[in-house]
């Protein structure tokens, strides 16, 4: 599993004001579960290497792997992935990694997903897997982003809303025109209005920048969700 695989960039698609989707062809990729990530390695001409983790937005079998990367200003790796990488370029990846932050379609229980910014990426894989399996498990996604221009996968997620999948947005800086309420961070009241209640017994997946994950997990615990039912994945930053 520690083997690095060559990943040829097949497609790059703008995904938000500061992010983009990278579609990679990875011969030897064994497929992946919803929520898993990979390590991506860049090697400079002088041999210097940098490794970062990225969640896999695609799910299931096949050697096409989709990532969505948000540019962290002054970052070492993400500005290169968002601005410079071109179709045909070859990167290296290893994975799929992680069995903890994973949802499997055989799991019939209710699921609450909570995303901050690019933390939506592994949750998109879960929503895709849920839709592909026509799973009746109640699924809800609460997405916190700064502004509509920052939201990854919004049209796709909105198109998937149905009886088994509910989607809510928290706009922290600016909401779309006509949106009721004022922009602001996720609050206890906002959580209570959108999320499955603790009595429903959901497994909760929280993902995003570390500060967002800590804040959201605290709100969830304060609302009565047992800490053992809250799975977190921290992307870094403050």
């Amino acid at each position, binding site marked *: *599993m520690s083997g690095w695989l060559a990943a040829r960039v097949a497609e790059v698609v703008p995904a938000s004001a500061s992010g983009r989707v990278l579609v990679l062809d990875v011969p030897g990729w064994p497929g992946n579960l919803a929520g898993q990530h990979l390590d991506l390695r860049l090697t400079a001409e002088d041999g210097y290497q*940098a490794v970062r983790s990225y969640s896999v937005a695609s799910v299931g079998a096949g050697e096409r792997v989709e990532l969505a990367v948000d540019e962290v200003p002054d970052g070492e790796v993400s500005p290169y992935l968002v601005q410079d990488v071109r179709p045909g370029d070859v990167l290296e990846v290893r994975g799929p*990694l*992680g*069995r*903890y*932050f994973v949802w499997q379609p055989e799991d019939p229980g209710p699921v609450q997903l909570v995303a901050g910014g690019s933390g939506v990426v592994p949750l998109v894989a879960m929503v895709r897997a849920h839709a592909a399996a026509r799973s009746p498990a109640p699924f809800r996604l609460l997405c916190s982003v700064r502004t509509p221009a920052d939201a990854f996968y919004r049209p796709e997620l909105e198109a998937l809303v149905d009886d088994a999948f509910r989607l809510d947005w928290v706009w922290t800086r600016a909401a779309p025109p006509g949106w009721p309420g004022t922009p602001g961070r996720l609050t206890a009241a906002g959580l209570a209005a959108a999320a499955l209640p603790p009595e429903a017994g959901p497994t909760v997946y929280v993902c995003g920048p570390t500060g967002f994950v800590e804040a959201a997990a605290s709100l969830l615990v304060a609302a009565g969700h047992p800490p053992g039912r809250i*799975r*977190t*994945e921290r992307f870094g930053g403050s």
Partner: protein
Amino acid sequence: MTGPHPPRPGAGTPAGRPPVDGNAAAGLLGEVLAVEVTTAVAECRGCGAHAPLAQAVVEVDAAGALVRCRGCTRTLLTVLHVPGGVRLEVGCLAALTGAAPTGGAPGAGG
């Protein structure tokens, strides 16, 4: 002590079998070192907390990764890049319990 059984160096020797060497642990140690680490439960010697390694506090840099207990912040493990390989330094980790990588039944096979 003499008799039909060889001397036992410790109570841990299973079923009185004579001690062998590290080669005999190759399969089992290989299993431990290949466990799925995110779900494996780490026990902290410092505060006694048990938690999946996915929930540990981790600091990653070019040298490697420092894995700390979320309960007490003590260092559980350090993983370092060294020339030609990696080095695992065990800190406050008392135990790591994980599922066999193959999903095989414990004790099955040999």
